[in-house]
């Protein structure tokens, strides 16, 4: 288990390495990558594990103890077959991680009426807004203060947690439950590409008093004022964070990644709490905001 070869597309390795330190099990000490999938964030991110880069598939497999094939449907099928064959020959364990809906994930209808628990709302807006990053950051923040969470989150994040758990690669620190006996509830709502769709979430608006509201938006989104107007109208407050993805569509279903976020096409950018989804301090920023919202100052106690 010490050396894990991550065989994935560029975007998936980028995605997984963003939160490797709080998703992967401590037994994994070293992550092996093919050179063509090394993400940019490796240059500046605070990745806790050792990353080793190889030129060829053979080298990666030979130096690994186990292999994680991520998002295989987006990899060339003959290469996936080749990796599987080589792994069998060299007796290496192969695990797969898909981001699509998997059969044994049962969707539990969110129960909004439980007002005693901490409520966290995460909204997703646009194409590829990277909502999993926020979900996992929030989950990790709650876990770090021993707060068990019920998850009504995106399928992608559920798939990651479930499959990593099944393969024994998931971090033991993550505390979550599908049942109601938890002190925090994380709700993710996909608004697709229209903030106005929030109006249709009647039960959510009526029964939740969120302790934390965040919006994950895609790269092309700029109408932050509208987000604030909606949250003010429904919950009387501004969002705690607007987290912007660096991925953007270039047509034909293909996406590109921007090396940085600039203020260029954003209206009144500075007036809103915009966070960069790839910012290495995103987790700390979310954690700070979240803790401030769910705890009380010394001398004040919730009864």
């Amino acid at each position: 288990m010490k050396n894990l070869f991550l065989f994935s597309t560029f975007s998936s390795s980028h995605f997984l390495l963003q939160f490797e330190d709080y998703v992967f099990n401590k037994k994994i000490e070293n992550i092996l990558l093919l050179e063509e999938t090394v993400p940019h964030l490796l240059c500046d991110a605070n990745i806790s594990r050792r990353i080793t880069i190889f030129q060829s598939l053979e080298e990666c497999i030979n130096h690994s103890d186990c292999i994680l094939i991520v998002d295989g449907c987006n990899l060339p099928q003959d290469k996936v077959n080749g990796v599987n064959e080589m792994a069998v020959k060299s007796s290496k364990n192969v695990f797969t991680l898909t981001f699509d809906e998997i059969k044994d994930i049962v969707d539990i209808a969110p129960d909004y009426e439980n007002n005693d628990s901490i409520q966290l709302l995460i909204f997703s807006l646009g194409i590829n807004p990277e909502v999993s990053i926020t979900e996992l950051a929030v989950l990790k923040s709650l876990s770090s203060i021993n707060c068990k969470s019920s998850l009504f989150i995106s399928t992608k994040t559920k798939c990651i947690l479930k499959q990593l758990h099944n393969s024994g690669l998931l971090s033991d620190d993550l505390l979550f439950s599908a049942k109601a006996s938890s002190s925090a509830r994380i709700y993710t709502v996909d608004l697709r590409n229209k903030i106005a769709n929030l109006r249709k979430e009647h039960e959510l608006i009526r029964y939740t008093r969120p302790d934390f509201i965040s919006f994950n938006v895609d790269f092309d989104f700029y109408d932050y004022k509208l987000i604030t107007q909606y949250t003010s109208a429904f919950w009387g407050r501004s969002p705690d964070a607007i987290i912007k993805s660096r991925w953007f569509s270039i047509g034909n279903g293909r996406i590109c990644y921007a090396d940085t976020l600039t203020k260029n096409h954003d209206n009144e950018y500075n007036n809103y709490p915009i966070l960069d989804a790839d910012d290495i301090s995103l987790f700390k920023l979310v954690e700070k905001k979240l803790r401030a919202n769910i705890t009380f100052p010394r001398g004040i106690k919730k009864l």
Partner: protein
Amino acid sequence: MPNDDKPIIKTFTLDGKYYLYDTFSNRLFELSKNHFIETSILYKIGIKQYFEQEKTRPEHDDIMLLINKGLLRAEIIQSVHNYLTPYLKYMLKSCVNDIVLQVTKDCNFKCRYCGFAVDNNVDRCHTNQLMPLSIATKSIDFLFDHSRDVNTIGIAFYGGEPLLNFQLVQSIVEYTVSKFNTKRVEFRITTNGSLLTDNIVRFLVEHKFRISVSFDGPEYVQNLHRTFKSNGKGTYKNVFSNFTKIREQYPEFFYTNVSVMPVVVEGEDYESIIQFFNTIGVRNEQVKMLNAELNGIDYHPEKIENKKNQFQNVSLADAYTKLEEVFDKKIMLPQIWHHNGTCVPGIKRLFIDCDGTFFPCEKILFRDNLSIGNLNDGFDYSKIESLMNIGELSADRCKKCWAMRFCEICFSTCNDIEKCAISRAQKEKQCDAQEAKALWFLKKIIQKGYEQ
């Protein structure tokens, strides 16, 4: 002195009724005659002066109400600039995801409407030049080095007739498959269909190529436009036989990966062409019609004239769908904005010619001023930046243009062929056409609304 606070709107009449299109809200309004006149006054004198006017007419209050609601704005965007410009260098370094390789300049056809087939054409001409293997592999290496951040890449083979250099196509495919480990590679080829032998088809099927066959349809149409270069004879029998063979031997592949691109010359019967393809088992979604103008060869205007309306309906159908999508989006425009139509050259369809010179795509004129680099020196960043920001040429007009949301001017249409440069004058010719198209669309949706 002309006032610069005129609202960005368009007023027009249709079938005796009065209409207003408000660019800021992207909404259409039907007006009474008096409101129409009032709006015209507002447009003439500008918002500031209109506010100062005495309220003698009841319609004045109504127009003021619209202004107070945030409509009829005189300023929507502050500057005309493509918002992807700051990311340009990075994108060209890591996000190139599709290349088009001109594997040969040669073709075995001489089609009437083909830009390459005209002997004295200064821009594009068929010659017997083939792309050398060294250029081809260098192109794939270039793509490998510049596509790190994309998950799927596309490689298209273009000509002339690319199958005249099939050996090179094979070599490139094998080299690409061995080179890329974690990206899905989609291969495409555009062919005239005459060289699709069993071996070639087997190879294309094996590598899941998307094949676009330039096949005009019925025998009389195909033979009229598409003839063999060697003897001038019609090509129908040959192309038809190869085409139907794919359907018979690989039916599943045929329906998912093969499309036909009939070129409809002005005046031809669109319905009968579609009908022809339907009768030979081609589904409507596989037919991608293109329009062509004849380059003065065998041009018979009197034959075209009587079918002009029929033709226009066909060519504008696509335009209507695109504009309808724009009209349905009621989103606010950002303060820094650039009109549609211009891509980021080099990212999506980088055309690499036989010599290794880069062009934004295969559809443009291969003039030096539109070249965006080459395999030896890489991209010409400043050229690309200016091409993706052609709106800046006429920024003052763009900022005030009522049709800004509908605009889709590509830089290739702003090229002044005589001066060999992109010019404002040339662009403004396109501006007029875009405004006309937008107005046509608005009238069309009004008519459609009444029909419903």
